[in-house]
């Protein structure tokens, strides 16, 4: 690593610290979900280290707990993580054409809402070492937090587990609400999502489907209808 790259790496680490702190708290609640699904702390650690996705992992753990099939898990993971597809598309525009393949496949590992956020905020073409710096503090925090959640979810009083369990939903809200504030259609879709999901948990036939399957169906139907009725302006920056 050259001196310049090292400086950029350290800058990435510094910007990654607040992300790591947030990850530690949120992944702890994810660990509680992993525990419920019957995962050990090592399994929780590995799932987080290799998936690095709150939504995807949460859906996965829920399905594991329900004894889902491998195909269901694969499909649900695909749907839950669809936004990373968009982020990666957008991030590809941030890379110079000469960016080495090994950098592309390494950065891909760290495409999360937050790391993507700070990476895309850099000016000019991306120096991959910035993203590596952020990943080097954020990924261990995420993985260790999950393992701690599996271990301490047991030890903690029910009162605290109950409180920590909503951290993840808080994080989901922190992702969707700012966009709802900017975009009325997104605000409407979130409201429709809440109502439809509530209705689906009571309606005959659909309420008998697995929770993950319901999530996939509702997401695909609502998003597809919205995409037909309210297509985005293609010139607009699509990501984030």
């Amino acid at each position: 690593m050259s001196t310049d790259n090292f400086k950029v790496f350290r800058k990435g680490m510094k910007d990654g610290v607040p992300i790591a702190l947030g990850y530690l708290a949120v992944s702890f609640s994810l660990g509680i979900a992993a525990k419920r699904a019957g995962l050990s702390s090592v399994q929780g650690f590995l799932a987080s280290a290799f998936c690095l996705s709150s939504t995807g992992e949460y859906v996965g753990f829920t399905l594991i707990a329900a004894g889902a099939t491998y195909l269901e898990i694969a499909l649900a993971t695909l749907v839950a993580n669809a936004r990373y597809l968009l982020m990666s598309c957008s991030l590809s525009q941030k890379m110079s054409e000469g960016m080495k393949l090994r950098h592309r496949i390494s950065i891909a590992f760290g495409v999360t809402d937050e790391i993507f956020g700070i990476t895309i905020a850099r000016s000019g073409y991306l120096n991959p070492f910035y993203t590596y710096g952020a990943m080097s503090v954020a990924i261990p925090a995420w993985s260790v937090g999950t393992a701690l959640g599996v271990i301490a979810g047991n030890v903690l009083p029910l009162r605290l587990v109950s409180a920590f369990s909503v951290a993840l939903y808080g994080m989901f809200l922190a992702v969707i609400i700012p966009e709802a504030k900017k975009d009325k259609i997104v605000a409407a879709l979130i409201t429709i999502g809440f109502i439809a999901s509530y209705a689906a948990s009571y309606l005959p036939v659909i309420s008998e489907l697995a929770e993950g399957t319901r999530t996939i169906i509702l997401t695909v139907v609502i998003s597809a209808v919205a995409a037909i009725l309210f297509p985005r302006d293609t010139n607009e920056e699509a990501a984030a």
Partner: protein
Amino acid sequence: MSNYSYIFIMAAVTYAIRVLPLTLIRKQIKNRFLQSFLYYVPYVTLAVMTFPAILHATQSKISGAAALVGGIVVAWLGFDLFKVAVTCCGIVLVLELFLV
């Protein structure tokens, strides 16, 4: 079915989603439907997963509902991910001192 197989599938699918666009697609997606669909997906899926599930995550439905409302307000005010998550936890912790 082994937990390690589950984890492997989750990791493989997640990584494929992230790595394929970065290595294969060098240009912006042009299809307007696909672009719009992909844009809406994360918000819809997170909304569907949040409610009514948040009501069942806590010991009392009231504290779950309060965390939902509180989280929406704090996120609307522009607080970051960490603060929104902590606010939701705090609301549940305090309310359940009285409710449970």
